C-alpha cells in the first residue's frame, strides 16, 4: 500500500469518478457559499428596514413562482439573462471578459426592430422571425467584433474596450432613435408589422398575462448549441484551450488571435439575440434603455452558472426570480435590495472560487498522502503517477470535462 503503483494502475472509471467529484465540488460549492452569504446580507438589510426576513422571502417566492403571472415574468426575464449569460460565459471560456453585453444586447434589439420595421406587412411570419433573429445576432456580433479584432490585432484590453463601447453604442443608438426614427413624444421606434414571437400566455394559462414568449425556447436551444459547440467541436476545444493557456494553445497550432476575434463575435451575437425577447416577443419595437442592466446581470449569471450552459440557464432563473421578486416585496423593502444582493453574490463567488479550489487541493493532497489505498484514485505529488495531477492543473484534464476557469 505504500507504493503508488496500485493507484496509478487503478481502472479508469475510478479516476474518472474522482475527477467528476472534483469538478462537481469546484463548480457547485462557490455558488452555494455565495448564496448563503447573500441570504445573510439580505437578512441584515431587511432587518435594518424593520421587516421580518421570513415574511419578505415568503412574499418574494409567492410573487414569482407562486402565481402564473409572476412565473411567466420570471421566464421572460430569464430568457434575456440566458442569452447575456451565455455571451459572457463563452467569452470567459476563451479567457475574454465581455463587459459589453449591455450594448450588444441593445444593438441586437435595435437592428431586429429596424429590420422588422423595414419588412413589408405581407412577409410570412416564419421568414420575418428568421430575418429578425439574424439581424439581432448581426447587430450584437458587429459590436462584439470591435473589441475582438482590436484584441487580436493590437492586444487592446477587451475589458476596457467593451466598457467604452457600451457608452459609445448606447449614445449612438440614442442619437439615431431620437433624431431619426422615434414615435413622437416617446423614445421608441414605431411598432413592427411582422415578426412577432407568439406569447406563451396565448398557448397555456400557466403564463397568464405575462410577457413570457417563445424566445425562451430559443434561449434553451442556444444554451444547447453553445454546450455542443464548446465541448463537442474542434473550434470549441480550441476556444477553451486558448482560455486556459493562450501561449500553450499557440504552441499547439491554434491561431489565438483569430479565436479571440471569433469568440467575441459569437459572444456579441448571443447577447444581441437577447434583444429579440423584448423586441419580437414583448413590445415589438426598440425602446431606449430596454436592456436595463440585463447585460451586466449576464456577468453574474455566467459567474454563478460557472460558465457552463446548464449552469447559465439555472442561474438566469435564479436572478430572474430575484429581479421579479424585488417588485413583489417592494412594498416592504426597497427593491434595490436585490441589486445589493446581486453584487454580493458576484463578489462572494469570485472570492470563493480560488478559496474553494485551494481548500479542495489541500484536502486532496492530504488525502493522497494519508489514505492512498482508499480508492481516492488520483494521487498527487508522486512522480511515478503518469496521470494528470491536479496539483498542476493540466489543461487537458480540464478541457475534457469543462471545468470553469
Amino acid at each position, binding site marked *: 500500500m505504500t507504493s503508488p503503483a496500485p493507484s496509478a494502475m487503478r481502472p479508469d472509471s475510478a479516476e474518472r469518478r474522482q475527477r467528476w467529484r472534483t469538478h462537481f465540488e469546484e463548480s457547485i460549492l462557490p455558488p452555494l457559499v455565495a448564496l448563503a452569504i447573500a441570504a445573510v446580507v439580505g437578512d441584515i*438589510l431587511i432587518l*435594518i*428596514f424593520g421587516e421580518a426576513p421570513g415574511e419578505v422571502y415568503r412574499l418574494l417566492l409567492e410573487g414569482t413562482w407562486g402565481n402564473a403571472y409572476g412565473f411567466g415574468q420570471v421566464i421572460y426575464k430569464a430568457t434575456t439573462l440566458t442569452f447575456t449569460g451565455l455571451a459572457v460565459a463563452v467569452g470567459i471560456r476563451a479567457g475574454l*471578459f465581455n*463587459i459589453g453585453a449591455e450594448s450588444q444586447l441593445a444593438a441586437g434589439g435595435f437592428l431586429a426592430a429596424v429590420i422588422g420595421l423595414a419588412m413589408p406587412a405581407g412577409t410570412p411570419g416564419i421568414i420575418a422571425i428568421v430575418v429578425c433573429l439574424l439581424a439581432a445576432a448581426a447587430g450584437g456580433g458587429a459590436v462584439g467584433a*470591435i473589441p475582438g479584432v*482590436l484584441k487580436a*490585432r*493590437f492586444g*487592446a*484590453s477587451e*475589458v*476596457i*474596450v467593451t*466598457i*467604452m*463601447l457600451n*457608452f*459609445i453604442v448606447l*449614445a*449612438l443608438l*440614442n*442619437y439615431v432613435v*431620437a*433624431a431619426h426614427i422615434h414615435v413622437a413624444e416617446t423614445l421608441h421606434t414605431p411598432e413592427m408589422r411582422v415578426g412577432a414571437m407568439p406569447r406563451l400566455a396565448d398557448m397555456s394559462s400557466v403564463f397568464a398575462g405575462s410577457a413570457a414568449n417563445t424566445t425562451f425556447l430559443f434561449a434553451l436551444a442556444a444554451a444547447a448549441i453553445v454546450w455542443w459547440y464548446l465541448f463537442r467541436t474542434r473550434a470549441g476545444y480550441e476556444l477553451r484551450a486558448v482560455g486556459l493557456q493562450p501561449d500553450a494553445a499557440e504552441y499547439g497550432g491554434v491561431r489565438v488571435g483569430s479565436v479571440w476575434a471569433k469568440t467575441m463575435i459569437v459572444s456579441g451575437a448571443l447577447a444581441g439575440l437577447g434583444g429579440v425577447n423584448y423586441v419580437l416577443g414583448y413590445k415589438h419595437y426598440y425602446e431606449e434603455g430596454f436592456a436595463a442592466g440585463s447585460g*451586466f446581470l449576464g*456577468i*453574474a449569471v455566467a*459567474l454563478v452558472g460557472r460558465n457552463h450552459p446548464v449552469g447559465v440557464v439555472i442561474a438566469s432563473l435564479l436572478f430572474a426570480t430575484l429581479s421579479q421578486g424585488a417588485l413583489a416585496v417592494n412594498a416592504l423593502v*426597497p427593491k*434595490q*435590495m*436585490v*441589486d*445589493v*444582493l*446581486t*453584487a*454580493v453574490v*458576484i*463578489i462572494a463567488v*469570485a*472570492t470563493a*472560487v*480560488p*478559496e474553494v479550489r485551494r481548500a479542495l487541493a489541500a484536502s486532496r493532497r492530504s488525502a493522497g498522502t494519508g489514505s492512498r489505498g482508499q480508492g481516492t484514485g488520483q494521487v498527487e505529488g508522486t512522480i511515478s503517477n503518469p496521470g494528470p495531477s491536479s496539483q498542476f492543473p493540466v489543461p487537458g484534464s480540464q478541457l475534457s470535462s469543462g471545468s470553469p476557469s
Partner: protein
Amino acid sequence: MIAFLIQTLRIAVPYLFAAAGGILSERAGIIALTLEGFMLTGAFCAALGSYYSGSPWVGIVAGMAGGLLAALLHALATIRYRADQVVVGIAMNLLAVGVTRFFLRLAFDSSSNSPRVPGFGGSETGNAAFASLFNPLVWLGILTMAGVAWLLYRTPFGLRVRAAGEKPEAALSVGVPVKRVRWWAVALSGMCAALAGSYLALDQHQFTDGMTAGRGFIALAAVIFGKWDPKRVTIACLLFAAAETMQIRLQALQLVPSQFVEMIPYALTIVALAGVVGRAAQPAALGKAVD
C-alpha cells in the same frame, strides 16, 4: 474666455480627483474599474454627512470614509482573497448603485434624491462660475493630482507602488510588502474617488440617484488615454472637460449632436488602446494577483 476656463475647471475637478485615484490603483496593479462605484459611495456619504451635521466639511470626511470602506472591501476581495479584479470591480459598481439607492430610501424615504444639503459655493452668490473659485474642493482637486505625481515619483512609497504594479515578484524578492502596498494604494484611490463624488454632491447641494453618471469611467478613460502618467492624465482630464464645456456652450447652435460629444473620451480611449497614437502600455502586472 475666462468663464470658459472656469467652467472647464469645474467640470474637470471630479475627473482629476477620480483619475488621481485611478493612477494610484492601476500603477499598483489593481484595475480601477471601481472608480465609478467609489465616487457614487462618496457622493452619497458626503450628502449624508453634510445633511446630518450641517457642515460640508463633515460631509467631505464622511464621503472619504465611505469611499475608504468601499475600497477596503474591494481590496479584501481582490488582494487578500485574490478574486478576479474585473469581476469584483464590476460588482463593486453594482453594489454602490444598490447600496446608495437602498439607503437613500432608508434615510430620506426617496428613490431619486436627498433633500438640499449644505455645500460649497452655489447659487447664493449669484455668479455660479465665479463662486466655484471659492470652493475648496476645486483647489484640492488640482493639488491631489500634483500630490499623486509627487507620491509616485518622489517618495519610497511611490517607488514601491510602481514596483508592485510592474514587477511584483521582483519587488517581493527584495522585501517590498507588495500586498500591503496594494492595500494602501487601493485605500487611497477609494478616498480620492470619493472626493470626486463629494465634490459633485456638495457642488449641487444634494445627492441624486446615479449622479456620477459614468464620470468614473471617463476618469478611467483619462488614466488610460494619459498613459498612467499624472501629467498626461491631467491634460486628458482637462481635454475631456473642455469638450464637455464646448458642448454645453454650443448646445443652442445644434452644430454637433450632444451624443457625439459624449462619445469623445470613450472613443479616444479605444483609439489609444489600439495604438494609433502611440501604444498605451499598461502597468505590466495590472490585474494580476500576488501570493
